[in-house]
């Protein structure tokens, strides 16, 4: 029983080691090194698009259920072939490039969006020993690569030569930069406690008995997780933070002028980002692949998919933010909260458990009360619009 | 450790610095000048890290100086661009040679 469990747990790792051993018998060492990289790379390159395809299906199904309808169910059983049908539709659509567009950049932007989204997969720990590259700066790598995402959105919005695209691009930049700050600071407590930036080590420190010593079971962990998750939702432009591509205000923002496969690439990057951000959130606070009884990768995918379902639930439930509310929420609410949270984590380290619980809950309650009091709802004064003078 | 000679890195960063300096000298647009200066700062950073890697027993020193330089470059860019925006709002231009109120 024990053996079968560990075999299923390590099945992918064993398969890769077996292939490498096979190659090593009649090929020089350097080819084996290359082959190791290629296998991990190919696995990620296949995983990304497949995840994206089935996330779209999941989203349509869940949203359908929330709105009391079925969602796609005609293509294949339970609509399982729907993503493939969508893919064929996207491929055969006409590719329209606006006459005044900056052609080269217009082409490069969708390609550039997908690259960082795929690159982040490298540091996501999918299971025991299943991190493609266990970098010792793993989390910093994640933050750095996801900050590149702003660039292609700028490229798309600028090269389209369209005022709605440009407005969408500006909003995106403002939003992504603002939410990156609390997101990084919210993750700092987890890094402080595990004393490492490596995603793998962060997961390993949450082992405990039964693999249940997750960071979310502490006061700073709960606050950090909630803030991180909200910021992650904002970072991948999902509702209720989808101002950059608000259909009703901006005609879809930065990808107004994109069609066919290029549009599909933006879509793909968005879903892959949603997956990796949820995966990193699970890694930092929900113990990654740690958990009792089930194989490690089942735990990881289970936690990540649960987080994605929460994101979809957000989409079905909340109305969109207003721009000034969005900014105020990041800078006036989340940022101070994360700073206090870092302080709490330091206190947690140096006080005994029960006293620490008491202290943290008191400080957090006081802080929340203060922030809510300080962030009074802003009612704009009545303005009279005068026609052009 | 991949051994490429220190001299090659130094020549490379020198060329990068020279290109940045050229941009800072000939650009008319203030934003163009600012981004050329970023190139120069970047070249000097490469030097700091190369020296700390090749000649120092504790490479932290060079890296920390590079960290400070990056932070200061970001500050310079932020303040500089704020000044450019204020200038644009008042004088409707971002060309350095059109801002000559104090010149005679």
């Amino acid at each position, binding site marked *: 029983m024990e053996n079968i469990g560990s075999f299923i747990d390590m099945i992918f790792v064993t398969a890769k080691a077996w292939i490498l051993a096979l190659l090593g018998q009649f090929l020089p060492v*350097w080819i084996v090194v290359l082959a190791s990289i290629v296998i991990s790379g190919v696995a990620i390159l296949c995983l990304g698009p497949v995840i994206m395809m089935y996330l779209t299906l999941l989203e349509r199904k869940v949203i359908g259920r929330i709105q009391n309808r079925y969602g796609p169910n005609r293509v294949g059983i339970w609509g399982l072939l729907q993503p493939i049908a969508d893919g064929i539709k996207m491929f055969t659509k006409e590719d329209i490039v606006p006459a005044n567009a*900056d052609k080269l950049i217009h082409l490069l932007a969708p390609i550039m969006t997908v690259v960082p989204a795929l690159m982040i997969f490298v540091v996501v720990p999918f299971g025991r020993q299943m991190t493609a590259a266990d970098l010792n700066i793993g989390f*910093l*790598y994640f933050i*750095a*690569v996801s*900050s590149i995402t*702003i*660039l292609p959105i700028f490229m798309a919005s600028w090269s389209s*030569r369209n*005022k709605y695209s440009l407005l969408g691009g500006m909003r995106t*930049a403002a939003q992504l*930069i603002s939410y*990156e700050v609390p997101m990084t600071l919210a993750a700092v407590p987890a890094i402080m406690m595990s*004393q490492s930036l490596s995603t793998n080590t962060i997961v390993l420190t949450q082992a405990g008995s039964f693999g249940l010593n997750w960071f979310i079971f502490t006061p700073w962990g709960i606050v950090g997780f909630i803030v991180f998750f909200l910021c992650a939702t904002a970072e991948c432009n999902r509702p209720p933070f989808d101002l950059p591509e608000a259909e009703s205000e901006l005609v879809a923002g930065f990808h107004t002028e994109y069609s066919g496969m290029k549009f599909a690439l933006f879509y793909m990057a968005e879903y892959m980002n949603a997956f990796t951000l949820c995966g990193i959130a699970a890694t930092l606070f929900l113990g990654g692949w740690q958990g009792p009884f089930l194989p490690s990768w089942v735990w990881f995918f289970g936690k990540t998919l649960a987080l994605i379902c929460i994101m979809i639930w957000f989409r079905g439930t909340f109305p969109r933010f207003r721009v000034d509310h969005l900014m105020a929420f990041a800078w006036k609410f989340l940022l101070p909260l994360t700073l206090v949270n870092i302080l709490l984590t330091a206190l947690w380290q140096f006080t005994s458990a029960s006293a620490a619980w008491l202290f943290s809950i008191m400080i957090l309650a006081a802080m929340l009360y203060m922030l809510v009091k300080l962030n009074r709802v802003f009612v704009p004064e009545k303005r009279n619009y005068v026609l052009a003078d | *450790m*991949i*051994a490429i000679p*220190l*001299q090659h890195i130094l*020549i*490379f960063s*020198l060329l*990068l610095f*020279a*290109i*940045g300096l050229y941009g800072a*000298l*000939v*650009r*008319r*647009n203030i*934003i163009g000048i*600012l*981004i*050329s200066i970023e190139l120069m700062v970047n070249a000097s950073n*490469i030097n700091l890290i*190369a020296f700390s*890697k090749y*000649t*120092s*027993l*504790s*490479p*932290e020193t060079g*890296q*920390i100086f590079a*960290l*400070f330089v*990056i*932070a*200061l470059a*970001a*500050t310079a860019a*932020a303040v500089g*661009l*704020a*000044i*450019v925006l*204020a200038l644009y709002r008042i004088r409707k231009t971002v060309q350095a040679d059109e801002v000559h109120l104090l010149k005679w």
Partner: protein
Amino acid sequence: MELLQLGAKFGIYAVMAAILVFALGVVTFRNLFHCALCLAAALIGTAGIYIALQAEFLAGVQILLYVGGVITLVVFAIMLTEHLAGKTVRQNNAQSLPAIVGLAGFVTALIALILKTPWPVTEAALKAKTSAMGLGEALMGTYVFPFEVISIVLLAALIGTVVIAKKDAPEERP
């Protein structure tokens, strides 16, 4: 294994060449937005050089701060000051030729200097390693004073930027 080493070496030279090409793009393109994109590419390439020099932490910080921060600021400024239609304005002043001549002299002199100087490259230094933890300990130990000074500078710059870029209070319309 030697083959991989050789490949890595060529890779570094290729990255260096690419950075120089992009840097030339930064100073020659007429469209400022293209310049900013070239700058981003050059900065990402520099992060690659840092990784080759085993400064991974710096590479991460470089991409995070430069590409995520500075480039975004620059593009913002370009979007706010340039016109979307982009009428072509002369971007360079008349000092192109003297600048090139002067810089050529400067570069040749310095290259001669670089090649003549006996750099104290030691085997022990090449083997020395850093980690993010070592950097953190140095920042909190030896360099704690500059670290604090930098934080004050950043705070001052933050406030200064807001004050400079802020719009004045709108005047009352008659």
